[in-house]
């Protein structure tokens, strides 16, 4: 399939008119027709004629950018003008935004073709894309397994060749978890690297906007096109954006990669551990030095994260009253209601100091512990999930069990660091396993270069699900 190729390869073919954007879009819609019913990767698919019209416009446009004519999809957490946006929740089932998210605007301005809006855990509340009012997203590698969450639909869509890339959203692992479970590559950026304007807020001090695709090379291209300050997002970074896609050849020799010993704790399943060990060997062979490091407060990361995230989400979701848009609050799922109630409780007078405030102090501790690592390391390596993709329903009975699955991803959100999730192998049952590379603030380029090097030396990311 054309959509097996990298974005750069597709752009070369498009520029030389060997293929047309129309063909790419047609291919995407064929994949959707074949597989979306089984996967539930989309909540809203654009009318094919509208996408084709955009494709023709891209084909006929005199100026081309790196993403011109490339089909993409957006997690349904991003508002899109005049195109229904639900955040995975029945509360917004009827919401037609009169405005678009900055990331959407930048991509469309660059000529990329929007195919549709991806299914997700409602409001970002989940790690498996089962907490959705639009049917759980299925893992393209095994329909009885979850696709990961909360950006499960985006990961499944990329894996199933329904688009060349997707924009997901990572608050506690929501790009990295589904990326690893669906064998795609996903980037959680440094907090503030990408504008959050138009991204329906889950937790304002944790939410990040990020790309998902089949390779680090693809991610670099997308990142370069959408990163950068936005006057509409006061927290967006004013730091310079680099040409990430031109910095991928940086050799790995001499790179010091830390492996936190807490990341290799007992919770880790044997199969995941083997994949991580294999990744360590690959990086060693590429010339990196592996160092054992420690994050002493790691075991507190999940409660710290969930106290802050639920507090902030209880606040951010207060606006949904069905008056100016959407439906009433009785349409929230039970999991969402739980998070709102826990968050309201944590902020309540009498508990505020011992719960919310204490958690924000714990956050400072974690930030300090990570900061201390950069004197001896250039980046960190570890698993994304403690286990291979879960069976549907395995985690939904016990919320705490669900939260504990985020043990390796949430510390990165709490500290605001960037992290790249890379396909790193398969279980005996042919279920994908991923690893993550965690970097210094705003050092996406080192991560992407290290990821590209890894993907030149391995073939995991090229494997396709047998749909």
């Amino acid at each position: 399939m054309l959509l097996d190729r990298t974005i750069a390869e597709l752009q070369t073919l498009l520029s030389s008119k060997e293929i047309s954007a129309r063909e790419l879009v047609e291919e995407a819609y064929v994949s959707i027709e074949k597989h979306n019913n089984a996967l539930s990767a989309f909540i809203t698919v654009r009318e094919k004629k509208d996408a084709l019209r955009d494709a023709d416009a891209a084909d006929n446009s005199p100026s081309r950018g790196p993403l011109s004519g490339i089909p993409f999809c957006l997690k349904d957490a991003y508002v899109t003008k005049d195109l229904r946006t639900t955040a995975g929740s029945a509360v917004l089932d009827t919401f037609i935004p009169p405005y678009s998210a900055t990331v959407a605007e930048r991509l469309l301005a660059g000529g990329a073709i929007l195919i549709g809006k991806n299914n997700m855990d409602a409001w970002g509340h989940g790690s498996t894309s089962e907490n959705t009012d639009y049917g759980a997203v299925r893992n393209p590698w095994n329909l009885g397994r979850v696709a990961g969450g909360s950006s499960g639909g985006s990961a499944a869509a990329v894996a199933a060749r329904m688009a060349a890339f997707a924009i997901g959203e990572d608050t506690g692992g929501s790009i990295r978890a589904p990326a690893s479970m669906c064998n795609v590559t996903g980037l959680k950026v440094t907090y503030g690297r990408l504008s959050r304007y138009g991204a329906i807020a889950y937790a304002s001090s944790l939410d990040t906007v990020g790309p998902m695709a089949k390779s680090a090379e693809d991610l670099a291209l997308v990142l370069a096109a959408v990163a950068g300050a936005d006057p509409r997002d006061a927290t967006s970074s004013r730091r310079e954006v680099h040409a990430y896609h031109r910095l991928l050849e940086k050799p790995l020799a001499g790179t010091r990669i830390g492996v936190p010993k807490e990341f290799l704790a007992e919770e880790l399943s044997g199969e995941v551990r083997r994949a991580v060990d294999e990744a360590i060997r690959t990086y060693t062979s590429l010339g990196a030095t592996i160092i054992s490091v420690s994050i002493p407060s790691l075991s507190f990361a999940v409660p710290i994260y969930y106290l802050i995230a639920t507090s902030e989400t209880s606040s951010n979701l207060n606006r949904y009253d069905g008056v100016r848009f959407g439906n009433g609050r009785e349409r929230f799922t039970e999991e969402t209601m739980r998070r709102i109630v826990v968050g309201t409780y944590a902020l309540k007078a009498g508990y505020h100091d011992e719960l919310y405030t204490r958690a924000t102090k714990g956050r400072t501790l974690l930030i300090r512990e990570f900061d201390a690592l950069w004197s001896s390391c250039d980046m960190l390596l570890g698993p994304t999930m403690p286990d291979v993709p879960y069976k549907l329903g395995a985690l939904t009975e016990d919320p705490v069990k669900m939260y504990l699955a985020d043990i390796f991803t949430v510390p990165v959100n709490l500290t605001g660091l960037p992290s790249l999730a890379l396909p790193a192998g398969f279980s005996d049952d042919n279920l994908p396993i991923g690893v993550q590379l965690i970097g210094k603030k705003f050092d996406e380029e080192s991560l992407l270069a290290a990821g590209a090097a890894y993907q030149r030396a391995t073939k995991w990311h090229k494997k396709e699900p047998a749909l």
Partner: protein
Amino acid sequence: MRSITPEEVQEVARLAGLHVPPEKLAGFAKGITAIVAYMEEIKKLPVETVPETARLTEESNVWREDTVTESLSQKEVFQNGTHAEGYFVVPAVLKHK
């Protein structure tokens, strides 16, 4: 370990504009209690002298000049929600402060 009564849970839910159906309340409250009990792990953290981190942005003094920009058109304003004669309407019963 603290136990949160179903009444307390319903009261907190009310603060958040939520209502737990009575038949689900007991189970829901149990879930809340379990979650909060787990969160209380953080009591073990030695954070007495540690400052809070309320936000991650490294920026400060981000503001806008006092210029007027375009507002939404009436069509855009009212393409969602319940409205009549140019106003959003809310049932009188929803009001309670």
